[in-house]
């Protein structure tokens, strides 16, 4: 009788060893860092690791530790470890991002008028070397390097992996570099600063042979930057025949148009919302 009970208990113990597969994983590990999952029981089992970007499946021996390789936990997120013998046991753990190592930078717009208040926005995303967004606070240094001017910088703390700034464009036209750095990593974008609207628009007239021409002085913005060629300047003539408007693109810095004049005439000039001086002229008989 005693022998029978002993055999029975041994069988129960062996069965338990073969089927029980408790697993214990740490609550949180760092991306790209190998670690071990403890198992109990005995015999062969199948190990599954279900992560945000991959499923792993392999045979393991119960009772020994399961080594999870660095490459199997590169992606941050929630993971489920499953060990199945006759029954399955499950453990969850999180993979947190490793330290910030990369910056993605969005800068808008790519062209901006000079002296435009908070017209440039720069948004930086901080991620680790596996492209996981780093949610712990990180300090990002934004840099602005205008052409022929002193570089400026501003430190911003990234919350939830995002840092951003708004910048006012400089007074001089030309390219300006906007960058963000995190430790040794940096990203750079170039924004083209262009002249703003015309300022102090001025026209003059002249006869060239039998033709009457009206032209602007070199068209500049209020900071002295040349307004780009192609910007439209509108000349409006009012004389005895009525009112006529001619739109002329700036070419080589000035806008020029031939305007037949009959009798007394008034000529005005405008570019966008900016108006210039008025000429009073008399046409040749």
């Amino acid at each position, binding site marked *: 009788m005693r022998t029978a009970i002993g055999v029975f208990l041994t069988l129960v113990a062996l069965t338990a060893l073969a089927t029980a597969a408790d697993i214990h994983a740490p*609550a*949180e590990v760092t991306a790209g860092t190998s670690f071990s999952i403890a198992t109990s029981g005995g015999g062969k089992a*199948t190990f*599954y690791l*279900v*992560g*945000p*970007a*991959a*499923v*792993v*499946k392999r045979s393991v021996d119960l009772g020994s530790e399961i080594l999870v390789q660095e490459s199997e936990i590169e*992606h*941050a*997120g*929630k993971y*489920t470890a*499953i060990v*199945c013998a006759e029954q*399955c046991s*499950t453990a969850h753990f*999180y993979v*947190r991002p490793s330290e910030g190592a990369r910056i993605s930078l*969005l800068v*808008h*717009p790519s062209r901006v008028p000079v002296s435009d208040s908070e017209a440039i*926005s720069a*948004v930086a*995303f901080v991620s680790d070397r596996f*492209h*996981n*967004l780093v*949610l*712990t606070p990180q300090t990002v240094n934004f840099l602005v390097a205008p052409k022929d001017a002193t570089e400026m910088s501003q430190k911003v703390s990234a919350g*939830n*992996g*995002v840092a*951003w700034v*708004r910048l006012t464009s400089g007074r001089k036209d030309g390219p300006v570099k906007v960058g963000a750095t995190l430790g040794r990593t940096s990203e750079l974008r170039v924004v083209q600063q262009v002249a703003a609207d015309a300022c102090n628009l001025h026209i003059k007239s002249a006869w060239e042979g039998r033709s009457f021409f009206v032209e602007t002085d070199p068209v500049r913005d209020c900071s002295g930057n040349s307004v780009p060629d192609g910007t439209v300047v509108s000349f409006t003539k009012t004389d005895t025949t009525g009112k006529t408007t001619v739109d002329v693109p700036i070419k080589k810095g000035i806008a020029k148009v031939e305007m037949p004049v009959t009798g007394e005439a008034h000529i005005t000039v405008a570019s966008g919302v900016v108006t210039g001086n008025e000429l009073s002229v008399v046409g040749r008989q």
Partner: protein
Amino acid sequence: MNRAFGVTIRAMSIIVLLGTIAFFARNHIFPSASADSSLPHVELNADKIGPRSIEDRTSQVVPRDYAYAWQTLAEALASNQSDLLDGYFTGWAKENFSNLIATQKRTSVHIHYVDHGHKLTALFYAPAGDVMQLRDQAQIERQVFDGDKLIDDEPLTVDYMILMTPGADRWLVRDLEATSEVGR
């Protein structure tokens, strides 16, 4: 008797053929997500969004497209078709889920989601309107199969940090990262 048997066989063949055509059309000819009753419930709270305030239209479109994203993700994982992800995923999110599907094919393991809804909180909307960061508290039931054998089935509450960017006619999920750090 033989004639009746032949008619039955022919009818069954036609039903099987139609079923196959319908399945093929759904999965290959029209692989994008369809608006049907399986669209998960998504709520959006944009009270704390900044620095840009959310436009009315955007506040309607973002939760709608996020729901489509989860619907297509569930379909893609269930059918091992990574091309379904093209509709509502881009960037790292698309790459990661495509990789997940590739490993599903290799291991014969597949994931089945039963979606019980999402509570989105908009956190950041870039000044230029080109990216939005959101937090999602998702209620999902995830079943893991090895072949036909169910190896894990449990309800999960998962916090996700999401980046979405506007595409031509919809918002796309660019990053979807489950985190234990949300709300810390």
